[in-house]
């Protein structure tokens, strides 16, 4: 078990180091002649006004909440799906009821008009 995660860690490190090597080679051989115009932010030739790190109205925080609910739901459903063959039929129906309750929540959001991009 531990070796498995060690292998994943190894993969993460190698998978980032090997592409980074391409960047290193590029850094060694590519010309470096920076100037202020070249390094300015590219916004179709118009000079930039202010910076991009501002507070911004995200349109989809309700979507994000719905996503969280459904994602947590699926985490609960994974063990249920795996044990399906060993569970009695009643437990399977309970799982279905759980999904139906969440679907009802989705319908509620829909009827409230929260699923519109506005």
């Amino acid at each position, binding site marked *: 078990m531990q070796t*498995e995660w*060690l*292998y*994943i860690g*190894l*993969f*993460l490190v*190698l*998978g980032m180091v*090997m*592409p*980074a090597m*391409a*960047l290193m*080679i*590029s850094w060694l*051989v*590519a010309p*470096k*002649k*920076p100037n*202020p115009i*070249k*390094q*300015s*932010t*590219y*916004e*179709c030739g118009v000079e930039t006004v202010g*910076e*991009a790190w501002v507070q*911004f109205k995200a*349109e*989809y925080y309700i*979507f*994000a909440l*719905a*996503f969280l609910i*459904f*994602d947590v739901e*699926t985490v609960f*459903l*994974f063990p249920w*799906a*795996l044990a*399906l*063959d060993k*569970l009695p*039929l009643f437990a*399977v129906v309970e799982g*279905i009821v759980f*999904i139906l309750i*969440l*679907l009802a929540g*989705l319908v509620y*959001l*829909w009827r409230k008009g929260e*699923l*519109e*991009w506005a």
Partner: protein
Amino acid sequence: MTFWSDPIRFVADWLLGVLTGWGLTESASDAILMVLGAVALITFALVFDIFLVWVERKVVARFQDRLGPNRLGPFGLFQPFADVIKLIIKEDITPAGANKFLYNLAPVLSIGSVLLLWAVIPLAPRIYGLDMNVGLLYVVAAGALGTLAIIFAGWASNNKYALLGAFRLVATMVAYEVPMVVVLLIPAILADSLSIWQITASQNIWYVILSPLGALIFLIAAIAELGRSPFDLTEAESEIVAGYNIEYSGMKFGLFYAGELLHAFTFGGFVAILFFGGWRGPGAEQYPLLGAFYFMLKAMIGYWVIMWVKYTVPRIRIDHMLAFNWKFLTPLSLVVLMVTAVLDKVLAGVAPWLYALIMFLSNLLIAWVTIEILRALGRRAGEQAVTQQVARY
């Protein structure tokens, strides 16, 4: 045991013999072999990635009635190598206002997250990096890392277009992850396992026959997760120039591009593994290399379908995209999941062919009901539009 029946074990045993012959301890040799194996797999993925650039360019050319690269080497096969050399010797421009650390981390993380997926892909019965017991969850988690890389890129560039691109990606990811994870439960139910190797091995009947709707939903959600057309709002050229990678040039852009192609191919591979039997085929058990060939062939067909969709369907608007997910794909995927779960439970112990037939027919029934509902809704919307028109005159 010969090379053909188990190539990895054969090479590993030979290397182990060499290493212990040099006087290394057993555990040190094992560790070296582990590193070598990982390096070999990653190198294979990266070299294959260069080949994918050629495939992509050649196929898009055919879709647009052009020839594509055909000058450099046979069928233009050496063209991507020229591309790589060009990208490497290009000047790398970092915008003055950028957050240097995240700006440089993003492209590396973007391709690293895709390579992480290759750790659990079973290429053949005995050729794979790792057989994880939580493979499917791991795939979802590693996929989310790629999203993080793109958010890094969009935010660190300090460019409004890039930031908008990253925002749009979050909206896409937050939406399409739901049907994708729900549909991933279907192979888990059918195979009674989360291990990707186990899911492949248990497909005596391809799961696409047991759950064609599941395969279709997975393909659509995968295309959205990849940010490919028709869901490529993150890099909509006509609106936000190039989206999150607008400030990237040279090899850093190259890494994003390579990461995107490899990601698409990897998801083509997952469609093949989860629904089309992965490496399974005649003779694959005896000759693993043949199994690897079957897998690559199926993955390439999956990748080709993703490309086909990309170059045929126009980009859709973001509100339509979210409505399509929340009002259509999510409820549909949950219904398919419920029906599959109940039928799997009720049909325990019947003959496999009957099981497959009922599963297939149930999916057809769901599809038919869905189409009828959509048709009724469409007719009602049409009638409303007509009444509004009449009322105006």
